[in-house]
Structure formats: structure tokens, C-alpha cells
């Protein structure tokens, strides 16, 4: 599903975030990326979603070289990916419901079916009662769960999560972990960057250190 082939990423002022990275993640696999702050975990996920382009090597997603995608084919890659961003990227001028609705609107879902899906996703993360709330009126953990609902509402075939449990207490984090396991079970490829390695005991583990893979 995902293949990194000698990928390196250097940010403008000469910061090597990733260096000569090669690995493969099979379809339907559940993998966890660990590593210290600044190790390159977010960069790795951004390369998969084509939010950044590698400065060396090739990133392949479902056989497609993501780094050489044209602008106009980018949206279709991203619709197949559900992504939870480290900084959440919620829209603060839309209600929780509308935030989760957005990916479905973009994909052009019929409104009736879309509304049902949105409610199901909000229920799953425990925000069923807060659909009318604006994100500013949600606690940090609730915002995080809202971001998770938005990522999964579209039933993507690939789920990328950057610190999805950073703002969650242990119980809620376990609930969230269970959601990811469920998706994994029904055949979704799941890739999670997190410090909480005890949440996914049976997952494959990738350890990053200063942009290099430890094995």
C-alpha cells in the first residue's frame, strides 16, 4: 500500500527531517511510528498525503508515485486518505456537524446519506450530543475527537493519524484506540504517529530517530 524508497526530506534552511528512508507498509496493516520530538514523524505522514514533496527518493501510495502527482489529481488521492493532523485543523466558523460534513460535501455525497454518516461518526467518538457546538466551545480532547470523526467519516482506505491521543485521558485514548483497531479489522490500512506505544500492543512498530529508521 505504502512504499518509501530511499526517501529524504530537507526543509529550506538546510534542516534534514528525513534521510534515506526505505520501508513498506502492506495493505490492511496497522503500524505505529514512534520517535522523539522532531524525529520526523509528522514529515513522514505529510509525504504520504502529498502535503510535502520528498527532496530525494520516491513515495508510492497504492502504486502511485505521490511526489510526481499533478495538481489536479491530488484531490483524488486525498479523498482516499483519512488524516488526523497534529494541529487538528478544524474550522472554527462551522459547527461540529459541518466540520465532519465537509469531506462528504467535497466528495459529493447525497445530503441525506451524508447526514446519517456524520451522526454515526460523531456518535462513535462520543460527540453525538454536541453536533451543533462550534469547535471553540469544545474542550481540547473533544476537539481531538472531532478531528478523528472527520477523518473516518468518509470510510477511507488509508488512515493516517498524527498524535491522535495527545489531548485525551487514558480512558478516552483507549476508546479512540479501539476505533482505529476496528477500522484495521475491516480492512483499512492504519498508520499512527504517537508517543503512547502501549495503546497499540499488537501493531507493527517503526522507530524514527533524527530522520532515520531504527531497526
Amino acid at each position, binding site marked *: 500500500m505504502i512504499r518509501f524508497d530511499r526517501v529524504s526530506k530537507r526543509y529550506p534552511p538546510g534542516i534534514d527531517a528525513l534521510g534515506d528512508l526505505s520501508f513498506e507498509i502492506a495493505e490492511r496493516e496497522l503500524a505505529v511510528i514512534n520517535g522523539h520530538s522532531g524525529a520526523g514523524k509528522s514529515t513522514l505522514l505529510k509525504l504520504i498525503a502529498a502535503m*510535502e514533496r520528498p527532496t530525494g527518493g520516491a513515495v508510492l501510495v497504492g502504486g502511485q508515485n505521490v511526489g510526481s502527482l499533478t495538481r*489536479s489529481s*491530488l484531490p483524488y488521492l*486525498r479523498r482516499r*486518505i483519512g488524516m488526523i493532523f497534529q494541529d487538528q485543523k478544524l474550522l472554527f466558523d462551522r459547527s461540529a456537524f459541518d466540520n465532519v460534513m465537509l469531506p462528504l460535501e*467535497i466528495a459529493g455525497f*447525497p445530503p441525506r446519506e451524508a447526514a446519517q454518516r456524520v451522526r454515526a461518526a460523531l456518535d462513535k467518538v462520543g460527540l453525538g450530543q454536541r453536533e451543533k457546538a462550534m469547535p471553540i466551545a469544545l474542550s481540547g480532547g473533544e476537539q481531538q475527537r472531532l478531528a478523528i470523526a472527520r477523518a473516518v467519516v468518509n470510510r477511507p482506505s488509508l488512515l493516517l493519524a498524527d498524535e491522535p491521543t495527545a489531548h485525551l485521558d487514558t480512558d478516552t485514548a483507549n476508546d479512540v484506540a479501539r476505533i482505529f483497531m476496528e477500522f484495521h479489522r475491516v480492512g483499512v490500512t492504519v498508520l499512527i504517529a504517537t508517543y503512547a506505544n502501549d495503546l497499540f500492543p499488537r501493531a507493527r512498530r517503526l522507530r524514527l530517530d533524527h530522520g532515520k529508521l531504527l531497526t
Partner: protein
Amino acid sequence: MSIWLTQHLNALRLALRRLGAMPLNTLLSLLSIGVALALPAGGQMLLANALQLAGTTSTAPQISLFMANAADRRAANEIENRLRRYGGVKQVQFMAREDTLARMKSGQGLREVIDALPTNPFPDAFVITAADDRPEAMEGLAAEFRRWPKVEHVQLDSAWVRRLDALLKLGRTAVILLGVLLGAGLIAITFTTIRMQVLTSRAEIEVSQLLGATDGFIRRPFLYFGALLGLGGGVFAWVLVGAAALWLRTPLGDLVRLYDLTLVIQPLGTLDSALLLAFAASLGWLGALLSLRQHLRQP
């Protein structure tokens, strides 16, 4: 098809919500665009009215042709025929010397003078309107007429012509100046307004892109937003121009009445109104399109 419609309705709804979310901004924007549009639209209205006025009155410059005092009516008739057949002449009015005398007598303070005269001192005359009223063409005609037999004097109303010409030149310069200035200003204002909306929606654009939105999807609500704002500004300009027309009706009417003309100033016609609104909406649409260009270029 249904999805296409849904997406457009959603975009329109979003645009309306954005307009409503910052009512003060919306109002100020409408005001800016409306005022910027009202000035050229008002100029157009005044111009249209001036043209209509010019159509109802013969303000064309004229040539006066005086026969020799000795010439008789037959000579005058010959000249008249010749004038009527002549190419560049549009209209000929004969003024018999008897009529001129009678008219002069009725003039103030001249009756005794004229009564004292042994013979009629006035010659037969023609007032000629030229087909082509540019000064050079008129000069040419006058020169030609001067060569005709029994013509004593040809007078060109040339000061009048040159004044009109200078006025028109000035008017044209002023209109160009205003047009360029206001055109640039209008575009700048519309863009500024819409860029403001784009800037405050940066997060939304970015997130939508990350969630797989096409450029078209992102653009749509902004295009509606721009078009609605432009349209609103256009309507506002239309109202302003209409109000100005009403306000100016009395003083303008008073003025032209003193020149023995009547003018009831007309607001913008249906076609002009439609053009104004279409132009305003397109401008807003275009402003949104261009404002988005640079934002969408980013990854």
C-alpha cells in the same frame, strides 16, 4: 446532476452565510463598490440625457450667406436651388430682406432708425446647416459659397464652432480621465473587498484542499460571494444614480429652460441598468477568481 445542483446550492448558501456573518463588512463593501460604480454610471446617465437633449435641439453650427444688396429675388432663387443641390448642405433656410426688415423694426430702439431709411438696408440671406459640422468642412463650404455670383458675404459661425469643439475636447479628456481613474479604483476596491474574504477564509481553503477538494469546489462559494457582492454594489449604484437623477431634475430643468429647452432627466434605461448590474456582478466574480489564483497556487 442532483449532486451538481446540491453543490451549487451549498456554495450559494455558504456565500450568503459569509455575507451575513459580517454584516458591517458587507455593508461597507457594498457601499464602496456602489459608490465606485455610481460615478461612471451617473456619468453615463448624464451623457445619455445630454445626447437626447442635443437631438431635440438644432445646436449644429450654421453658415450665414448674404446676397449682394443689388441682387434681385431671381438671383436669390438661383442661389437657393444651387444650395439645395449642393452636396455638403443639409438644410437651407431663406430669409427674405423684407422679413429681416420687419424683424429688425420690432427690435428695441431701431424702429425710428429704420423708418428713417429711404430703402431697405438688409439683403436677402440664407442660413445654411452643413451635413458635416467639423470646422474644416465648414470652412471649405464657406470658401466655396464665397465664389458664387451675387454673394456679398459668407459668415461662418466659427467662434461658436470652435467653442463647441474645445468643449467637446475637454469633455472627452475629462471622461477619459474619470474613466481610467474610476475603472482602476473600482477594480482595486472590489479586489480588496474580496481578498479580505479570501484572507479570512485561508484556513478553510487549506483544510478543504487537505480533505481532497478540487480547485473548482473551493472556488465556487467565493465566486458566488464575489458575484453577489458585485451585484449588491450594482443595485446600490443603481439606486444612487436614480436618486441623483431625481435630485438633479429640478435644477437641471431650470437651467435648460433658460436656454429655451426642456429636459426631464431620465434615470438609467432598462438596457443600461441591465448592463450595469451584469458588469458589477462580473467584476465581483472576476475579483474572486483573481484573488483566489494566488491562494490556490500554493500546495
